[in-house]
């Protein structure tokens, strides 16, 4: 079925098609439409799920943990301050190995109060062990929810599906809503082998000393690494079934590119027409859109970037005192590589500042002009 839907509703549709059994959520701008539509879907009986209308995001994640531990497929969604409030229990969900899927709408952090897009909220949670997918279209949001469960339930780790506030959350696009029967075939009912079961009593998460904690962390890292292959596998399988394949990154006119722009989410979408225009002028420019940020696809990035002439990374987030996160991680991945290209790190679009095609073009042109980056952070159009 083809339907014009907003990004937030794509999350709701993704949860419905994945047959989420428990939803626990708290409203926050710009996420509200996700929970409103899910509430209606539950009330109308389109979605056979328990909806827990909690009193905070902290409780949204805690309730999700309980439901997931009881064996139910669980969904929630939040943004910015809500995600930050969840921080403690985000770690808990990972440590408890619960395959929860959550939508996060990227909104800049307060103060000052703001509701516009920036990735610093989800980037701040990169060390919680949540796998993170950064999306760039309404269709991809819906598809990523379904794919997220397929990966989460194999590695027993939670997954965050991330989208830009307003630019994606409140934009309407034509979207293919796949048949339920096809989604059921792709994503069968989940049986959690470690659920809370009165016939197999066990304590989960009890006091663990230095003699075992270390091994538990090792297992999380190993399964996180394993999820890289699973994202590729399940993305291919998704392509075979639904005609839309997803990988760790999306490349555009990359093959012979000597200057490569690395970005994510909607800035990467904006970059495509810029690349097209510059190609027509004879510049060998290409694009990598990083889709899976956790785990970071370091091997793939090395393969794609080694030997290029120049790389610029555009971040809509900032780790104060360092630089943008995608830049940091791309640079780290390339550090021990022989033909590591020089890398420019641009900070753009914080707090929802528009990043139109001419700004993207400015960044590419500045990179092409310089031999080496002048510093770790290059600000674009900042009013000083």
């Amino acid at each position, binding site marked *: 079925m083809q339907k014009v839907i907003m990004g937030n509703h794509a999350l709701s549709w993704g949860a419905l098609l994945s047959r989420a*059994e*428990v939803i*626990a959520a708290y409203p926050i701008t710009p996420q509200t439409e996700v929970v409103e539509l899910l509430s209606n879907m539950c009330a109308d009986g389109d979605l056979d*799920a*328990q909806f*827990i*209308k*909690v*009193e*905070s995001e*902290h*409780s949204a994640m*805690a*309730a*999700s*943990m*309980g*439901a*997931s*531990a*009881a*064996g*139910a497929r*669980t969904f929630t969604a939040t943004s910015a301050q809500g995600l930050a409030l969840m921080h*403690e*229990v985000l770690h*808990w969900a990972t440590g*408890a190995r619960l395959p929860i899927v959550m939508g996060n709408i990227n909104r800049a952090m307060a103060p000052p109060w703001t509701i516009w897009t920036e990735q610093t909220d989800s980037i701040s949670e990169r060390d919680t062990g949540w796998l993170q997918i950064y999306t760039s279209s309404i269709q991809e949001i819906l598809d990523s929810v379904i794919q997220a469960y397929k990966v989460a339930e194999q590695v027993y780790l939670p997954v965050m599906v991330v989208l830009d506030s307003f630019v994606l959350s409140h934009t309407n696009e034509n979207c293919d809503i796949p048949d339920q029967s096809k989604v059921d075939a792709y994503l069968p009912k989940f049986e959690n082998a470690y659920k*809370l*079961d*009165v016939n*197999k*009593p*066990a*304590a*989960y*998460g*009890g*006091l*663990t*000393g230095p003699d*075992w904690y270390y091994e538990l962390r090792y297992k999380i890292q190993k399964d996180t690494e394993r999820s890289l292959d699973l994202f590729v596998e399940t993305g291919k399988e998704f392509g075979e079934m639904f005609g839309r394949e997803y990988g760790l990154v999306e490349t555009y006119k990359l093959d012979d590119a000597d200057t490569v722009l690395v970005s994510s989410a909607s800035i990467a979408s904006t970059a495509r027409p810029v690349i097209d225009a510059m190609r027509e002028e004879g510049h060998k420019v290409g694009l990598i859109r990083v889709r899976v940020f956790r785990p970071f696809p370091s091997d793939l990035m090395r393969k794609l970037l080694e030997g290029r002439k120049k790389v610029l990374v555009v971040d809509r987030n900032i780790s104060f005192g360092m630089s943008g996160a995608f830049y940091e991680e791309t640079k780290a991945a390339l550090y021990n590589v022989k033909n590591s290209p020089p890398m420019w790190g641009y900070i753009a679009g914080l707090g929802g500042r528009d990043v139109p095609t001419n700004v993207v073009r400015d960044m590419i042109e500045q990179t092409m002009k310089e031999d080496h980056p002048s510093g770790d952070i290059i600000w674009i159009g900042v009013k000083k």
Partner: protein
Amino acid sequence: MKYTIPAQEVMCSGHKACQGCGAALAMRYALKALGPRTIMTFPACCWSVIDGPFPYSAVGVPLFHTAFETAAVVASGIRAGLDARGEKDVNVVAWAGDGGTFDIGIQALSGTTERNDNIIYVCYDNEAYMNTGVQRSSATPWGAVTTTTPPRHFKKERKKDMMAILAAHSIPYTASASVAYPEDFIKKLNYAKSIEGTKFLHILATCPPGWRSAPEIAVQLAKLAVQTHAFPLYEIHEGRYFKMSMNPAKKPLTDYLKPQGRFRHLTEEQVADMDRMIDERYSYLLEQAERSKPYFDAKKETK
């Protein structure tokens, strides 16, 4: 009707409780009433240690250890998960100390109670943050010494009335209980099991290290708390109707205070002040119980 304590033991030996721990007794009795078809959540509290380190567990039922402020809502989530999978006939029990209930966990507990999620919440109240080494909580009674309320600056605030806060949510059932009266406790748990919605049980659990009292008089002290009216046993039905579980002739308050080091610094005058506060609260409860009589009489008649 005579209530007896079930013979079944769900909890096993080998747990890590201190000698004379009221919380350990409370769990043993609770599991006798709840039985093995029970799933529990523990926030940070004494019981997150008492249960034993990984891979041991003393409770004999599935147990989810969770963050300090989330016992109630994780239980809500478990209930929703079980409902989604059609698993009925399982008690979902949040089991938390006074810190995790009166203080850091009150928000999530309020949310769960307002939604009337079908769980039993048991607060075993040892009247301070005992697991971290006896710091005051809002459940610490007026007059008590803790490591953060030293003798010269003993706790000057009254114990938070958690039962009243729960009652204000129109909770179907809330009751206080004591490890010195296990039959009463088990009767209350059985009632809680028999009705839908959120049920809250507040059980006083003696703590010899925290109360600075001898372990061998732990049960006796719990009994004295009831007999001196310092910790009355009562129920509130539907958030409005009060019922005294027992109304013992009042023993002198000093019988309860003297064996406890945490009250040793109090002057006679201060003890008298404390006594007045206790009487004030007790007569309020009696008035409420008197007012509620027609409700319980009508309930009896319909039976």
